């Protein structure tokens, strides 16, 4: 059971992150509020991404490899998500750097964020159910502390506690579901490259076509696991905690939850569905289940977002609605009784949309992080006149909101096209229609914010904005990516095409 050199090499991105996290935490004992912690984090991210790129090239020549006693896998899919998650968190931390002055123990904040990101990095490469569970816990627990980090905001503690309770419940559901998977198949292995170590999917025999999901244990297992993950991904009807946590927690934490956690969670969901439940008798059932959840999630998220007065709550509901769109892509499993037609469209569209969503949502959150820190309020009204007082912030927020609506030429439009394309391909045209109409409805509240920025005169003193160079860099990068990926999507499409080959 010892660690081999190969294990260490394949785990190197995570190991690098953990080492740097320890450095940050220990150096925080001496310099609790130095911005060195942020730079260390950026360095760690850079090192980790470089190592991931090497791994990508290695996988390209050697094919995917399992390591750590078959509990983890290194394939393009996992590495793609690692890079996406790391980049998103790094950008969020960088743009929040100036707002960290309101915290007492800055180094701890950054250190915990790094540990959480290690958990998120492990999720897409987890190959058995136990590893999945451990990775989820590693990702969630630091977030509890981060959500409660703000000492001067009363709601912060509440939001931390709420997240803790909800995490516990959802983990329990997930674990219970996993137990049923184990009971039904006798193994915990999600993936395997070795025929002597069969996976759950291979062990599921004697399925009955008349029972939903093939057999009662699988039915229970799937419903419990999807519910557990549903909490993490804030899918309706498990979304109740989302707006409260986003509102109370520091904005940075909301951004991490909505972008990085979501990407990792969907990576896991997609992997489990496509590898564990890919049997033709089962896939129709979960496809329908997720399609219904997607329709409800989009509609509730968008309709409730319309009446929000608080920017962070609005972004929370927007995140719920966006999760619904991604879920459309997840549900688009084009398997017609084993006859797979353009089978890859679903996963490809999910990966593409998650990447685009990371760009546009980090852009939106960056502006909100900066304005909330400056105005000390997250009311939507506080954005009045932003167009005149800071053209950069207003411009970036406009681009990102238009992308969230799905207006060309942004990545949001392209992403929605790919997702709905996959849905129609999987015979889910009704879902695609609901999705597109939802996009039209969402235009109402997203454009409302743009309208407030440009058409209202400021209620809070306009004044001069001093935006730190690091923050403006993030703003330009994310808004630029939102536009460029919308105009030239093909390179990213090639990349996600290669990454999604790993799971289909």
């Amino acid at each position, binding site marked *: 059971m010892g660690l081999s050199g190969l294990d260490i090499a394949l785990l190197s991105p995570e190991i690098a992150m953990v080492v740097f996290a320890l450095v940050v935490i220990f150096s925080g004992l001496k310099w609790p509020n130095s911005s060195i912690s942020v730079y260390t984090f950026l360095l760690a991210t850079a090192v980790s991404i470089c190592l991931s790129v090497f791994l990508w090239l290695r996988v390209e020549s050697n094919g995917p490899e399992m390591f750590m006693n078959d509990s983890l896998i290194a394939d393009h899919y996992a590495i793609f998500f690692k890079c996406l998650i790391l980049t998103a968190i790094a950008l969020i931390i960088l743009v929040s750097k100036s707002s960290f002055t309101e915290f007492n123990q800055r180094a701890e904040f950054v250190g915990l964020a790094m540990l959480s990101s290690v958990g998120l990095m492990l999720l897409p490469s987890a190959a058995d159910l136990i590893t999945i569970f451990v990775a989820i816990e590693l990702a969630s627990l630091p977030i509890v502390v981060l959500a409660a980090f703000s000492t001067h905001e009363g709601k912060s503690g509440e939001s931390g506690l709420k997240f803790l309770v909800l995490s516990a419940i959802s983990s329990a559901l997930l674990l219970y579901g996993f137990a049923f998977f184990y009971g039904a198949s006798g193994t915990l292995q999600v993936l395997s490259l070795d025929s002597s170590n069969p996976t759950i999917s291979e062990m599921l025999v004697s399925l009955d076509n008349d029972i939903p999901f093939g057999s009662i244990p699988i039915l229970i297992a799937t419903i419990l696991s999807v519910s557990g993950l549903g909490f993490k991904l804030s899918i309706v009807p498990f979304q109740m905690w989302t707006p409260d946590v986003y509102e109370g927690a520091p904005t940075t934490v909301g951004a991490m939850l909505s972008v990085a956690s979501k990407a990792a969670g969907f990576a896991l969901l997609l992997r489990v569905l496509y590898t564990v439940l890919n049997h033709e008798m089962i896939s129709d059932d979960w496809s329908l289940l997720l399609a219904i959840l997607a329709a409800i999630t989009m509609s509730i998220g968008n309709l409730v977002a319309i009446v929000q007065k608080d920017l962070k709550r609005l972004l929370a509901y927007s995140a719920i609605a966006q999760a619904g769109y991604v879920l459309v892509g997840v549900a688009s499993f084009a398997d017609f009784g084993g006859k797979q037609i353009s089978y890859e469209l679903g996963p490809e569209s999910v990966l593409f949309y998650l990447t685009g969503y990371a760009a546009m949502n980090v852009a939106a959150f960056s502006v909100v992080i900066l304005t909330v820190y400056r105005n000390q309020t997250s009311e939507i009204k506080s954005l009045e006149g932003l167009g005149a007082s800071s053209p950069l912030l207003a411009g970036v927020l406009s681009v990102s909101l238009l992308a969230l609506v799905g207006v060309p*030429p942004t990545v949001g439009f392209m992403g929605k096209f790919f997702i709905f*394309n996959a849905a*129609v391909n999987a015979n889910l*045209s009704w879902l695609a229609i609901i999705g597109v109409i939802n996009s*039209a*409805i969402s235009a109402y509240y997203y454009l409302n914010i743009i*309208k407030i920025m440009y058409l209202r005169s400021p209620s809070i003193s306009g004044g001069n904005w001093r935006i730190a160079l690091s923050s403006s860099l993030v703003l330009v990068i994310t808004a630029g990516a939102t536009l460029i990926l919308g105009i030239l999507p093909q390179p990213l499409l090639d990349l996600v095409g290669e990454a999604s080959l790993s799971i289909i």
Partner: protein
Amino acid sequence: MLTSVIFIPSVGSLLLLLVGKNPRISRLVALFFVILELILVLILFVTFDRSTTGYSFIERANWVPLFNIQYLLAVDGLSVSLVFLNAILGVVAVLISWTITEKVREYFALLLLLQTAVMGVFISMDMFLFFVFWELELIPMYFLIAKWGSGRKEYSAMKVLLFTLIGSAFMFISIIALYLSQPVADRTFDMMILAERDISGLIPYAGLISIGFLVAFAVKLPIFPFHTWLPDAHTDAPTAISVMLAGVLLKMGGYGLIRINAGLFPEQLSDLAPLLAIAAVINVLYGAFIVVRQTDIKRLIAYSSVSHMGFVVLGLSSFGGSVISTTAINGAALQLFSHGIITALLFVCAGLIYERTHTRYIPDMGGLIARMPLIGIGFIVAGLASLGLPSTSGFVAEILIFLGAYNTYPLATALCAFGVVLAAGYVLWAIQRTLFGPSLKRWADLNDASSSGKWAIALLLIPVMVIGIYPRILLDVLENSLLRIVGGLA
């Protein structure tokens, strides 16, 4: 060539953001770019080969190879006529906006962006690209109405945005479904290939797919009962945007109906023809009856658009007949152009009157012709063209539609022809109430149009008269292309 036609205005738009906030420079930059655009389009119009039934000036590049999405530009006669219309109205819109004082730079930047998007709609032959421009047009329009409009401007802007977005949601799904229902090996968004392929007979659910397109275009044109956004938007928009809305944005709906519903789904269109004929009658008569009751001059013109777009629908309903003639379709395409010019002229005059009297309430006006003869003449000519007086472009278009549609739906045609009588009534009455009558004291010190206004009126008067007297100048451009489109059914 076509790439520059699309992107010259947006180059201007970007340049405006660089040249600083001086309103005078902003105006001149905007004017320079729309005139440059008009010259380019004039060259296109003159050099366009009228004898061909095919497409000209094709530009093709791969955009998203995975889905065979292309950057594909081309024009046929239908496109050329509407591109020409858009270029003329672009100049008019800039001239008529000369008096805008608030945020001049941003205003013209958005106006030019709008022109780019509309050009893109008329020139793109890749359906995906077409949809991109179709959606792109909404954002500048929303802000132009919400920021520089009057009255309930934010409400109206949001209303038109949501109506169009929900309409185009159906089109979006139809585009995807159309793409996916082709055989895997030769899936394409290329409308030129699709038109040749006779897809309407080959693919499943062609009826539903064509209805998806129809809904989007019916909202835009608009066809009753999707018309309720129109009066609000046209009334509350600034003059130049009313001109663009009525002049070219509605035409996007008519263009889509002819290009996609008639061109790609002729059989489905012919199944729907009875419905279209009914919708046409309702549009024409209901629109006309409501116009009579209007007291707001811009609302009056807006509802007259609803009525006149009914004629376009009537022209298309001729697809229901056993003998397909191109006459009605020619008329419908000509009506798109002619109504664009005429309504633009009406809105220009109404805008100029409003600028001077500061009222749009018709009973408050009266005797204005004595104070502003040029605006008055513009308004009268546009009004007469609008009611279809011979020797104006409106007459040619409507007579062709009636001639073509009579064989198929004589009753509907007769009822729609009655709409012309109503038009004569409301137009003459409106002219009488605003321009004639005793000259009122409170209007005594008003001036006639400024030079930018004069240019705008002149630019619109020329095509109204030229096409009225010599319609072949435009029919030559249209005829062969429409013959090809209609030929899909034969």
